[in-house]
């Protein structure tokens, strides 16, 4: 074969986001560094190529859908909701999800309180639950402004809060990671957990969005 086509990606991505054209573009200095570091780590016996592939697969499996399933359970099961708010790591593990060493805190949105999560110092995110953070979460704009003018930032995401809602911003400065349990939308009585989970977006679990209406 001329070359291995698994390194090539063509066409639109499943999520609708653009792929980076890095695989076929000219080889960059930093890509050469990645290849060199990976090869040296494997050759020196620190890890195997199979372990690297398995880790990529494990991260690919972590997506906002997992968090959405947790939220849907919390909406449906008061005991689970109480446990989630008391000890989110234990509740999520009890729910059957592998979240590695994650120390998770769940914060709940109500008709009086809206929670918003940021990491001003770097890009801390509950990746072991939700997958990798979106690009905007890591930008100077979000990191700088979410702690000073959260309501203005929320408006840039299209979220206008009622006047009597208190905003609680959570800066992930150390060892905890945060997930927002969005408020359950009206008109969802009697819906199955599976149907409820489809209303829970990634942004709703960061706090920059609300759960969708059915």
């Amino acid at each position, binding site marked *: *074969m*001329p*070359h*291995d086509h698994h*390194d*090539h990606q063509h066409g639109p991505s499943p*999520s609708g*986001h*653009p*792929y*980076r054209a*890095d*695989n*076929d*573009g*000219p*080889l*960059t200095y*930093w*890509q*050469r*560094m*990645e*290849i*060199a*570091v*990976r*090869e*040296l*780590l494997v050759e*020196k016996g*620190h*890890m195997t190529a199979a*372990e*690297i592939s398995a*880790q*990529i697969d494990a991260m690919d499996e972590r997506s906002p859908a997992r968090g959405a399933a947790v939220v849907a359970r919390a909406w449906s099961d008061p005991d689970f909701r109480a446990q989630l708010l008391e000890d989110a790591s234990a509740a999520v593990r009890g729910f059957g999800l592998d979240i590695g060493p994650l120390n998770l805190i769940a914060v709940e949105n109500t008709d009086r309180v809206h929670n918003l999560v940021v990491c*001003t*110092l*770097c*890009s801390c995110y509950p990746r072991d639950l939700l997958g*990798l953070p*979106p*690009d*905007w979460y*890591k*930008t*100077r*704009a979000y*990191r*700088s*402004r979410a*702690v*000073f003018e959260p309501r203005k*930032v929320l408006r*840039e*995401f299209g979220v206008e809060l009622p006047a009597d809602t208190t905003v609680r911003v959570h*800066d992930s400065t150390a060892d905890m990671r945060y997930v927002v349990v969005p408020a359950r939308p009206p008109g969802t009585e009697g819906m199955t957990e599976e149907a409820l989970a489809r209303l829970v977006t990634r*942004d709703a679990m960061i706090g*920059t969005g609300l759960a969708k209406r059915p």
Partner: protein
Amino acid sequence: MSDTDGRRWHDMGGQPAGPVVPEDHDFALWEKRVDALMVLCGRKGLFNVHGLRRALEDMGEDAFETMSYYERWIAATNQNLIETGVYTIAELAERMDEIATRGPSYGEAQTGAKDG
């Protein structure tokens, strides 16, 4: 003469900044590999996420503005592995030089890619 309040560039909370543009992209294979290498290095005790952050901070604001996220991550991962002695600077430089001869694209520069 110079003076400073001691605030470091990465410590951004409350600083003035422009609007949040809710952009995202799907990660390329090489970016996923950088992420996986960092996670596995941590799991195997070669270095930890605090060392990664320290190296990212020490790379400075210019790196933040001009390099992509995972470009910065591989640079910071390398910095930690050099410090830990996992390989030498010369070993890395020679390997990167050899990789440049393999082919013009990332896909073609993989070992074994040609007989995959």
